[in-house]
């Protein structure tokens, strides 16, 4: 398995306040790494550090090269980021937003779109089912449609790794399922990997292949999902018996089924 992303001793601090403290992990092809932890654990900060936003210390390498040595467009061809929320200012069409995903593949300032561009866009549209709203203004879309639009942009961008920051946090259940199914479908192609920050531990277990558990900025454990999210560790980090809670929640539905 080739390593797409490697993070060593990542530290992010604002003044005296250390948000992320010497966290290390790596992401390899075929892997879906779930970054989990309670509120304030530093999950989103890790995403913004590796996607180039927040200033940080430590070593982040992408395909064996230092993150900072990448030109923005070269980085975008390897790694794509989906934000939690989108607040578009103008009435762009779904098409215009999705087409922006091809930016990192363009050849010149005034170069038109290539057949490769069109093929990538068609694949992205087909996957996300945006055809019916292709010409619609993004200002008129529901939260789920908007998230699918930006997911299609990401698919059109065609990076090797997706970085997702709580992609379904504010979405209805149907959209949650839709988005996670889309991503696992995308992951089936060889050489791809996904890193996502999730709040919902069930989602982490259901879709993740590995996990990174954080507590107040520190890494508590990483590795295969089932090992990392063990009963003991979760109880320690969340200060409650998470397993018992999940079972109780599930039992609500089993009663319904047995009736």
């Amino acid at each position, binding site marked *: 398995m080739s390593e797409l992303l490697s993070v060593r001793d990542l530290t992010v601090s604002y003044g005296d306040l250390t948000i992320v403290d010497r966290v290390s992990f790596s992401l390899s092809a075929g892997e879906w790494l779930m970054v989990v932890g309670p509120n304030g654990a530093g999950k989103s900060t890790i995403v913004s550090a590796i*996607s*180039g*936003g927040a200033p940080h210390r430590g070593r982040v390498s992408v395909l064996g090269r230092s993150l900072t040595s990448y*030109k*923005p*467009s*070269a*980085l*975008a*061809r390897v790694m*794509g*980021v989906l*934000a939690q929320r*989108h*607040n*578009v*200012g*103008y*009435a*762009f*069409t779904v*098409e*215009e*937003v999705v087409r*922006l*995903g091809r*930016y*990192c593949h*363009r050849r010149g*300032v*005034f170069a038109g779109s290539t057949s490769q561009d*069109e093929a990538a866009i*068609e694949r992205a*549209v*087909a996957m996300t089912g945006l*055809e019916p709203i*292709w*010409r619609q203004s993004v200002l008129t879309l529901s939260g789920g449609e908007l998230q699918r639009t*930006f997911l299609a*942009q990401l698919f059109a*961008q065609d990076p090797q790794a997706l970085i997702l920051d709580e992609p379904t946090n504010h979405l209805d259940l149907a959209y949650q399922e839709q988005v996670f199914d889309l991503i696992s479908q995308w992951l089936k192609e060889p050489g791809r990997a996904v890193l996502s920050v999730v709040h919902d531990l069930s989602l982490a277990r259901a879709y993740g292949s590995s996990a990174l558990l954080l507590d107040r900025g520190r890494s508590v454990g990483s590795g295969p999902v089932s090992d990392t999210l063990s009963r003991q560790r979760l109880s320690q980090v969340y200060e409650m018996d998470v397993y018992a809670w999940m079972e109780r929640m599930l039992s609500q539905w089993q009663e319904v089924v047995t009736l």
Partner: protein
Amino acid sequence: MAHARQRRGERGLARWAGQLVFPALALVVMVVAVSLGSVSVPLGQTVEALWRAATGQPQPDRMIASIIVSTRLPRVICAALIGAGLSVGGAAMQGLLKNPLADGSTLGVSGGAALGAVVAIAFGLTLPGLPFGSVMVMAMVFAFLSLVIIMGLAYRLDNSLSTNTIILLGVIFSMFVSSIVSLLITFSDDKIHSITFWLMGSLAGANLNQALALAGVLAVGATAIVACGRELNAFAVGEDNARQVGIDVRRIKVVVLVSVSALIGVCVAVGGSIAFVGLVTPHMVRLLVGPNHRRLLPASLFGGAAFLMLADLVARTVLSPRELPIGVVTSFIGAIFFLTIFWRARKGV
């Protein structure tokens, strides 16, 4: 999908036709603006005077020739170039900051440029061989510094650059700059007339040399901005999105801000602070061609030229033989437009 592609083709054709509307409009307005004026000259004589001037033939009526060729034409050309520069600059700012109310005048950049020009006049700065050069250069430099200050403060205060932050900072900065202008006026007794008259601003003295300076800066600045169409689309969707699709966010900001400063600087140096042009035109144009900057920027360029030529035509003719300052006309239209946009943005209509 094949169906979709076909639809895309038709739309593409319609959009290309749409792209020709604005240059055609600017051309028609230019013809009208040159043929109408304070002194009425029959169209036939206007055309003849222009034709003879272009072909270097002697003019039968020297008075008409001087009115049309030496006075009206350079003024119309300067109005067109200033309108184009301010509008494409406004459109670029509105995209870059993802804020429909951003513009040289609302951000205080025009005020900064005016301060630069006043400094050049007050301290008697001159560039050898270029009588008005120092005023232009100082206006451009101060426009850039103003943008850096305003944006630096805006990002620190409110990373999402909300309308309130931007507008409030613009108002504060404008007041600050105008207080410095007043201070300079107080301390420069001998230049007081030059400064106050310059601040009043006028296209009345527009000449071909100024048109050349405008055309030169516009050729470089507007090309640089139009070339950033895709990147500005991404910024208009959101700066984070721009970063994520692989845009060199810092480089684009520098390119756009330097170009916008140069455009606003040279326009202010020639025509004074003509408010609201950079706000009104991109809005009207956006209603017609949509928010895509690859169409919006060229359309704003030509739409702005048409708008300012029309505003100048009104200023020149409505009270003939008197003249109105052109800023009165643009501010009147602009204030109404500004209110409408603000209202709709606030009410979410």
